[in-house]
């Protein structure tokens, strides 16, 4: 089943390679990956999605926790987490601009570029919603598209906030 793992890491060079390397080295496949800094600039938060059974996901978490730059790991409950990824979608519009803009509204997608004979939309949502948007736009001719990895936060008061590192690191 599709699992969402949140990983708080030290924000320093090479950390992405260490995390990604652990996945590839141990034969795990990442479906999507998103990385960005947190409210504390010394920490970044990664969100990884992967297809894995319960035993595998436990092993993935423990292997992640072993990396010395990883500060916190949590599998997020898919049903009680807010999940978003973002898509930018460039569609051939031609004579059908109005029609496309109406369709986009259904998905709360906004046009961000109208130059030339194409339209570029931006939309956010979970994987299912964005797939549906792509399907709807496909017949018009998708010129190009780009999608971010999924980001997710568990609902409610839980927090993966890290106050300080396990180890004492040299100051920047």
């Amino acid at each position, binding site marked *: 089943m599709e699992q969402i793992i949140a990983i708080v890491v030290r924000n320093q060079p090479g950390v992405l390679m260490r995390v990604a390397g652990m996945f590839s080295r141990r034969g795990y496949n990442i479906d999507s990956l998103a990385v960005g800094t947190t409210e504390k600039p010394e920490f970044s938060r990664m969100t990884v999605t992967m297809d894995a059974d319960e035993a595998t996901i436990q*092993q993935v978490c423990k292997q992640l926790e072993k*990396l*010395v730059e990883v500060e916190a790991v949590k599998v997020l409950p898919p049903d009680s987490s807010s999940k978003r990824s973002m898509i930018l979608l460039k569609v051939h519009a031609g004579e059908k601009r109005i029609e496309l803009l109406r369709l986009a509204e259904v998905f709360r997608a906004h046009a961000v570029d109208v130059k030339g004979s194409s339209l570029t939309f931006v939309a956010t949502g979970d994987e299912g919603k964005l797939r549906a948007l792509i399907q709807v736009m496909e017949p018009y001719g998708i010129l190009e598209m780009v999608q971010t990895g999924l980001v997710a936060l568990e609902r409610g008061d839980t927090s993966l906030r890290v106050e300080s590192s396990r180890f004492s690191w040299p*100051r920047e």
Partner: protein
Amino acid sequence: MKLTGAEIMVRCLAEEGVSTIFGYPGGAILPFYDALRTSKIKHILTAHEQGASHAADGWARATGQVGVCVATSGPGATNLVTGLATAYLDSIPVVALTGQVARPMIGHDAFQEVDITGITMPCTKHNFLVKEPAQLAHTLRLAFQLAKHGRPGPVLVDVPRDVQTELIEYVHDKLPEVALPQPDMERVNRAIAAINEAQRPVMLVGGGVIRADAEYDAMHLCEKLHMPVVSTLMGLGAISAYRKLFLGMTGLHGHERANNAVKEADLILAVGSRFNDRVTGERSSYGANKKVVHIDIDPAELDKNIYSNIGIAGPMKQVLNLLEQGSKVKDLSPWWQRIESWTSMEEDFGDEQAPLFLKALNAVIKDKDYIVVTDVGQHQMWAAQHLKIQFARQFITSGGLGTMGFSLPAAMGAALARPQSRVISISGDGGFKMTGSELYTISTHKIPVTAIVFNNHGLGMIRQLQTVQFEKRFTSCEFPGYVDFVRYAEAFGVKGEHVKTPEQLAEALAKAMELDEPYLIEVEIDPKDMVLPMVVPGLGIGDFVKFEEKK
């Protein structure tokens, strides 16, 4: 106080109490070597960087202290990789220092530039490229802390040449201690209940017991309960082979008694073992009909290879002591009767002749402070099966990576680390040819290592595998050329002799142990000799290969 980066590197080694390092110079590490010149730290110039990394590893295995090796950028650094991977797979604390091209040159494919932090990422516990001179000292201290903390492992620090020459403010400092994860008491109590219920318990000791210096704690627990003990290759020495509770080594070349005990046990208490495939054989049947209690400092080892009913992550000594306090003495005599019906480890080697050479050594090494370092292959398994190892850190071998060429340089490191001990290196002729050039280092520094070379003029383990798995289609397992290893040693100024019988070997070794200098003993063995018992590849550890017409 302002010092150069190179001087700070030397200071940080001194802060950590490092007395000896192994290495090989080159352009990008020369500032460090210049600073080392006036230091009290002894530098052992090896014949090859691989020798330096194995020597640092041997030092660490013999003492538990961090071993240190040094190399230059590019090929110097890549030559360390096999040694680092060896240390990584066996959880050995090693710090490797490498020179790197100057910062402005990084990424330009400069002369002798490689991305050594990228290359060693999967075979070190952690690594660093020091880009900020101000971070150098702290990084080195952290490297030592990481190498030792929790489950030990190798850490590499890559220092660009211009960082080594820059003047930096130096302050003597110490990093704060980092706490270890504490065992879950609910699980400890469940483990105690499982031990108290078990009718046929077996303790399986692995290398983690030795890494944690927990051999006495393990022994007290099994002595109290009169629980049979089996050992993995890496755990040998944690429990003396002379103890009645010790059934032998378990695994693919394990003793029949040890493997059968694991197979028929209703409880396996695994301490500091990661259930490597060479220990378990076919995995799905391994834990059948039994409970597995698994104790390890590394939580990631629990349920990785073998599902454990109760997994406890925590410091080995502490968990073993808790189990000892809680467990109750019980009559295990029916279980012991069953165990004693199986062939004992003393009788368990078929008709092979080569094991007799190893058995003959037991009289020489018994109760002595001798360290045995093996290479990889048949002689390693014969040594593991037939040498009676009594003490932790007495048996040094490359288990996880199975690195041929490990023995001689690792023995050199062990001998320098423990000058009061005597070190016996055992190799096959194949492995000895790989790193035999370290005889130069051994001879130069008069390091009293006695190298025993088992010569069967080929790769015996390959021959054995081709016998079992490839219907005797032998290929690349014979060395048609001839090497006289005694004369090879003489070329380096090391004396030696040839022996033909187990008695001659024991005599030669006893004599060599009295010398204060290196010595080489070449033993002629039959190329057709096999390591027995042997588990059928792909089957469970109770299914042994039966050779009808072996030779």
